[in-house]
């Protein structure tokens, strides 16, 4: 082994013993993430079998109604939130660096933090089932069943546990977006990136706009449950329908957040086995982007039976039909690729084709359900259960199984068994269809979902028994899959680096040392470099491209430009640490203790989380390098530090704040929703008045201006003035928070009396909290400068905080205009 490889291996060395759990490298964290998601999948699968046993015969008493409620709620919740979404994040974190030809993604510690949040939140939510305390309101938690009529802590566990897990999803989205846009191999222009990268970029952007409405809904429902704020109580002006809106603004895009990454795997697998490039690359990009945005216009089709105006149903029905266009386009591109290629038979292809066929059936019943009159008949029946399982299992499980068989040689170095793979495929395909096809019929015969038993007179007994037999066949298929994964014979198999003869770049790493990922970061010139670039594998393996060495024994990867992947920066990424685990533990404590209303413990945990995250930022971000530039090989020198829009950290802040402002706008949506449904919603005489909200908005606006002024002072090295201005800025920001709170306070607005004061309190509370956080960040910048971790030249911290204050100012102005201005405007006095 030469010296350069030794240094590289030392820099990327995975800690041993118990310190292994401090690793943050994406390939290791991605592996944990994948395994954990699969464990949750099997847990939820066992729950599904319990459901099927209960429904096997009429009037069965295997489970009580209460147990059944908990089990079907947990089955849906775990499958959706702890498997379907995390598995896509897991696979992306695991494979994306290799697919992009990067040595790592830009924020490995963020990925590790996301993983620990996911694990802690997942155990908390699943554990509730063993204490007879699980949520039982269905996976979409409709109030008032989960508010006024939902005693116990089950719904709180759902709301707070999943809010915590959603943090992991948003963290993964930040990592993925910045990774795809800024960390590609040099030369990998936007028209050459792996199609998986396009899909995953679209999905990560969807997360930013889909998850925050659910977060907003979670806040409102939890306030309703914990403090009796009447957001969903019709007697005090609230309305349970707002939850349905917020949930489905999240919930429908979520279906595509699950489906698109899996289809992306098919788009990667199919060309390999067709031995040709993907047909219609641009059309597939259209499909991904088109499906992504259209999916946000469909949410009301889950609410067709709630009595919304017919004209509204028409709009959403039309949009639901429109989404079939991009969905169909990508499937035709896949078929065209298969038709023009020379298809090689294999287990991954079996799963790919089985998945496509299954998904098409689910898609067609989806088009049926998008027609409102049909939906009126089939709503909340087993027809819907059959439809959604065809979509999700065809569109997600089959492609994931295909991917496990496909990528096994890359991850473990050997292929899984062809014989067992085929057996697994046929058992899963037959078992799946036998389970879920009869559900369409039992649904049409009138069998409602979520009812723990049925009478023999309904005429659905035989269909249910068939479904139960099918479910055990399906489970047998998964047992074969598990055996294939873990059987001892696997260890004896010879290493195969690229057994499928794939052309995409991730297959390079199969032949490289796993710890360092790619031996040298290549220059990419085609979509399938292993097929089309001569001597590619050899040149990469011999370290002839960039970063073949780690002279300073630090972990490094390259940052490139968004469109043309031109070299921009050599980015030093942080190594192993336990701080991400501690941060997740304290953050988890905050949510978990709040579930039980242990407020002191909640406060201590929250404080611990703030301290840990501050220490993490202090010690692990925006490092000042020992030199300005570094030689990365091939005679190229790159800067080691960037700030502002050229830095990955700035983009992470921008993306996070997009999610944050989306959550805030969801709350504003709530305000106006209540205004439309309540005859006398606005009560200007009860507060918060015009004065205090306007003072709050103006103070925060001034604080933002001061932060930018402070940033320019820092750049001019006027240290004292910088400290002064930033202290003033922090005080102004906190003053803004105070003014916002004073509005409802001086008017003595009681949030439990009516939904109007409650929603005003939520909006001003949200803004005030953000303003206080802004002050904290401004003081942090002062501390960084005092501590020598930020200078006039190395100013990433103040650049990022300036960006934060822009979003803060937008939040404050909107809050001031809505809570202070709108009541007067609506009454014609402004």
């Amino acid at each position, binding site marked *: 082994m030469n010296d350069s490889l030794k240094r590289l291996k030392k820099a990327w060395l995975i800690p041993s013993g118990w310190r292994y759990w401090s690793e943050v490298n994406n390939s290791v964290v991605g592996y944990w993430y994948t395994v954990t998601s699969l464990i949750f999948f099997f847990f939820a699968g066992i729950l599904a079998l319990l459901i099927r046993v209960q429904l096997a015969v009429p009037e069965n008493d295997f489970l009580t109604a209460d147990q059944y409620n908990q089990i079907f709620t947990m089955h849906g919740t775990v499958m959706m939130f702890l498997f379907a979404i995390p598995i896509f994040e897991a696979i992306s974190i695991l494979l994306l660096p290799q697919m992009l030809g990067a040595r790592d993604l830009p924020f490995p510690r963020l990925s590790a933090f996301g993983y620990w949040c996911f694990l802690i939140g997942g155990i908390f939510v699943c554990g509730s089932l063993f204490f007879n305390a699980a949520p039982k309101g269905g996976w979409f938690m409709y109030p008032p069943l989960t508010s006024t009529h939902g005693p116990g802590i089950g719904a709180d566990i759902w709301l707070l546990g999943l809010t915590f897990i959603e943090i992991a999803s948003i963290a993964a989205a930040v990592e993925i977006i910045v990774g795809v*846009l800024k960390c590609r191999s040099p*030369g990998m*222009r*936007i*028209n*050459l990136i792996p199609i998986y990268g396009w899909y995953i970029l679209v999905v990560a952007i969807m997360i930013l706009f889909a998850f925050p409405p659910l977060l907003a809904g979670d806040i409102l429902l939890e306030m309703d449950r914990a403090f009796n704020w009447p957001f969903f109580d019709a007697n005090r002006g609230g309305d349970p329908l707002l939850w349905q809106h917020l949930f489905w603004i999240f919930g429908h895009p979520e279906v595509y957040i699950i489906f698109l990454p899996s289809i992306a795997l098919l788009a990667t697998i199919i060309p390999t086995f067709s031995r040709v*490039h993907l047909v*219609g*690359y*641009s*059309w597939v*990009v*259209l499909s991904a*982007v*088109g499906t*992504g*945005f*259209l999916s*946000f*216009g469909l949410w009301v089709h889950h609410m067709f039976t709630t009595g919304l*105006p*017919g*004209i*509204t*149903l*028409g*709009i959403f*029905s*039309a*949009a639901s*039909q*429109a989404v079939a*266009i*991009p969905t169909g386009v990508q499937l035709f591109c896949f078929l065209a690729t298969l038709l023009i290629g020379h298809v090689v038979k294999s287990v991954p292809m079996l799963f790919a084709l089985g998945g496509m066929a299954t998904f098409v059936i689910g898609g067609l019943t989806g088009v049926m359900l998008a027609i409102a009159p049909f939906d009126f008949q089939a709503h909340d029946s087993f027809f819907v259960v059959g439809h959604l399982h065809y979509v999700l299992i065809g569109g997600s499980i089959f492609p994931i199984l295909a991917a496990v068989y496909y990528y096994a040689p890359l991850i473990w170095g050997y292929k899984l068994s062809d014989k067992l793979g085929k057996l697994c495929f046929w058992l899963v395909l037959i078992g799946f269809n036998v389970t879920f096809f009869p559900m369409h019929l039992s649904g049409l015969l009138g069998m409602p979902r979520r009812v723990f038993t049925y009478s023999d007179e309904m005429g659905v007994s035989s269909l249910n028994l068939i479904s139960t037999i099918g479910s055990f066949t399906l489970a047998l298929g998964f047992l074969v899959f598990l055996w294939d994964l873990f059987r001892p014979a696997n260890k004896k198999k010879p290493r195969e680096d690229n057994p499928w003869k794939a052309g995409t770049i991730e297959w390079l790493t199969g032949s490289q040392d796993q710890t360092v990922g790619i031996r040298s970061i290549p220059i990419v*010139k*085609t*979509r399938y470099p292993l097929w089309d670039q001569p001597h590619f594998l050899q040149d990469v393996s011999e370290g002839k491209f960039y970063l073949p060495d780690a002279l300073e024994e630090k972990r490094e990867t390259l940052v490139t430009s*968004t*469109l*043309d992947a031109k070299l921009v920066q050599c980015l030093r990424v942080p190594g192993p640490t336990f701080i991400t685990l501690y941060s997740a533990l304290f953050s988890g404590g905050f949510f978990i203790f709040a579930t039980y209303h242990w407020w002191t413990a909640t406060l201590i945990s929250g404080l611990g989380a703030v301290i840990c995250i501050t220490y993490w930022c202090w010690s692990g971000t925006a490092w000042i390098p020992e030199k300005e530039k570094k030689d990365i090989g091939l005679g190229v020198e790159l800067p080691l530090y960037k700030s502002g829009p050229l830095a990955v950290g700035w983009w992470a802040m921008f993306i996070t704040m997009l999610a944050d402002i989306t959550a805030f706008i969801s709350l504003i949506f709530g305000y106006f929703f209540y205004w*439309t*449904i309540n005859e006398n919603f606005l009560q200007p005489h009860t507060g918060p008045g015009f004065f205090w909200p306007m003072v709050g908005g103006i103070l925060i606006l001034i604080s933002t201006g001061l932060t930018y002024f402070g940033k320019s002072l820092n750049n001019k090295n006027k240290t004292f003035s910088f400290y002064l201005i930033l202290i003033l800025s922090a005080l102004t920001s906190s003053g803004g928070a105070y003014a916002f709170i004073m509005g409802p306070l001086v008017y003595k607005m009681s949030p439990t009396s009516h939904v109007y004061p409650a929603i005003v309190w939520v909006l001003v509370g949200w803004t005030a909290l953000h303003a206080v956080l802004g002050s904290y960040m401004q003081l942090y910048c002062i501390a960084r400068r005092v501590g020598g971790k930020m200078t006039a030249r190395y100013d990433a911290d103040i650049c990022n905080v300036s960006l934060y204050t822009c979003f803060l100012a937008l939040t404050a102005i909107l809050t001031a205009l809505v809570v202070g201005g709108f009541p007067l405007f609506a009454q014609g006095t402004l």
Partner: protein
Amino acid sequence: MNHKHSLWRLGLSPAIWGIHFLLCYIAVALWCAKFPWIDLQNIRLLVFAFTLLASLIVGWGVVSGLFRHREGEGGLPHDDDSLEDRERFLGFTRFLISALSLVAILYTSYAIFIFRSCE
């Protein structure tokens, strides 16, 4: 060829679709919940105005994307390692996404011209 293309432009047509969709939704929601005395024809006129404006902007995306895709010598699949092919790819993708946005905009408006009541 002008190489100052930006990835943001790909999102313009979908964003216009989103704004149009929201405006249509809000217009009918407010009509049904707050202002039922307003004549439906006025609501339709308003929606027609939104739709015309949105279609013009998105239509511009369709045409300009198509021109950009056809610029120069290179044909599909636009997978050459060159600035020109990158531009043609972005143009073609913009053309497709804008065309889909246009269809979706017309679908949404169409519903308002068929349905007559809030029942």
